[in-house]
């Protein structure tokens, strides 16, 4: 049986199971079939850069190489962020209760791309658990969106997750990632006024090398 996800709302623990919202189960799905001129089904394969080696599906793998191009084990490598600081791996969210404390506004929620959505159902049938879930539901009915970091199996980075009520009144978990949205003014965002001084512009105008 799958391990439940446990939320902590105040002092109450609420254990829930996740049911993935799958597009194919809502609307159906499409499969693409490739056939040759005789109507026989074809398989997808990869043609290597030598133009003759055919590789079947699953016939390639990913390896890591060091700065000199020599193979190395991934376990020997160190993950760092863009600033060069070592990343501390995050634990799976199923390992410890998730405290429901931080909230997000509608605009903050809309700043994220949502990759996965789950409906939540209560794990267990005792009265205390049902009461706690009622309390969570009434909090969400007031329009609250709880925000927290979420990782299914642990890893280097956690996803952004939100707990909200769907229009049909179901408690939903939305998992996604933040996007880089920014207000823009009359000047295009890629054009920074600090970068171009008036002197530079004048010099550029007089620079015949550029012609």
């Amino acid at each position, binding site marked *: 049986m799958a391990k439940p996800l446990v939320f902590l709302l105040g002092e109450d623990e609420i254990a829930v199971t996740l049911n993935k*919202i799958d*597009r*194919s*189960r*809502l*609307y159906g799905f*499409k*499969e*693409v*079939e*490739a056939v*040759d001129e005789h109507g026989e089904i*074809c*398989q*997808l*394969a*990869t*043609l*290597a*850069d030598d133009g003759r080696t*055919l*590789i*079947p599906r699953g*016939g*390639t793998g*990913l*390896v*890591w*190489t*060091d*700065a000199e191009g020599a193979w*190395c084990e*991934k376990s020997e*490598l*160190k*993950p*760092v*962020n*863009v600033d060069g600081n070592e990343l501390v791996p995050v634990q799976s969210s199923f390992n410890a209760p998730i405290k429901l404390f931080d909230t997000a506004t*509608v605009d903050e929620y*809309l700043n994220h*791309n*949502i990759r996965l959505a789950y409906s939540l159902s209560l794990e267990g049938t005792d009265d205390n658990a049902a009461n706690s879930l009622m309390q969570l539901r009434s909090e969400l009915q007031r*329009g609250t969106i709880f925000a927290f970091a979420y990782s299914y199996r642990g890893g*280097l*980075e956690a996803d952004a997750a939100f707990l909200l*009520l*769907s229009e049909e009144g*179901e408690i*939903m978990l939305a998992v996604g990632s*933040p*996007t*880089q*949205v920014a*207000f*823009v*003014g*009359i000047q*295009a*965002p890629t054009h920074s006024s600090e970068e171009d001084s008036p002197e530079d512009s004048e010099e550029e105008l007089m620079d015949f090398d550029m012609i």
Partner: protein
Amino acid sequence: MGDINLANSSGRDAVVATASVVSERNVRWLDKQGRQASSARVIKSTMPYEIDRLISVAGTVSKLSQLLVDGDPEIDLENTGRILRETARVYVDKDRGIVRNVQFWEIVKNADGSVRERRPRKLADTNISSDTPLRWSGIFVPKEKAIRKFVFSSKAQIQHVNGLTYDFLFGMARDLEQRNSLMLLGAGPKSNQPLILRRGAVPYRGFLEGRTDGDKYLLLLHFSNMELKTPTPSERPTSEEGASA
């Protein structure tokens, strides 16, 4: 940056820019000396060394088992481990020959796995930057309701390309902000067709959102192809139906 042909509530249209807002992954891997490591794709096995072919060459599975005990007939010594750079996707027939005249069929299935339709695949053209602008549909969904009704899986930021389109988009953003709503943005004469961002890409419903901050604006086009709801019992395939599909 891409283009989008958009009309405002007055029916005035302009071609403006769309920018990606996807956050880049910010994890790098360093080797023991603190130098940047990189990933590479390598060959694990090639077609002549697939299990089906090995069985047919050996004759029987038990003969192949003996060959595997005695040696390494499954390893392509010339190619296994070779780093791949530029590759091509090809289709092969049952004899592992490259097929040059491939025809694609779409098999449309219901939620229960039953086949609804089988048809030749047609790649729909993009419809967001065509000569016909995406019209101001006037169908507004309050933000509070929209986030509880739809799953917004991606988005693009719409930006001006000159001073005139700055005014055009700022006005649009302010209008949407005052309504505190997202506006359904569809293609076609009735604005009811889904948006196709690239030829053959997944169709999405588009929702336009606007915010302003002083003389700055934020105009986002949210994309959704799924509602935030669980399937009703009739939409759920049973395990038997799923297995038979």
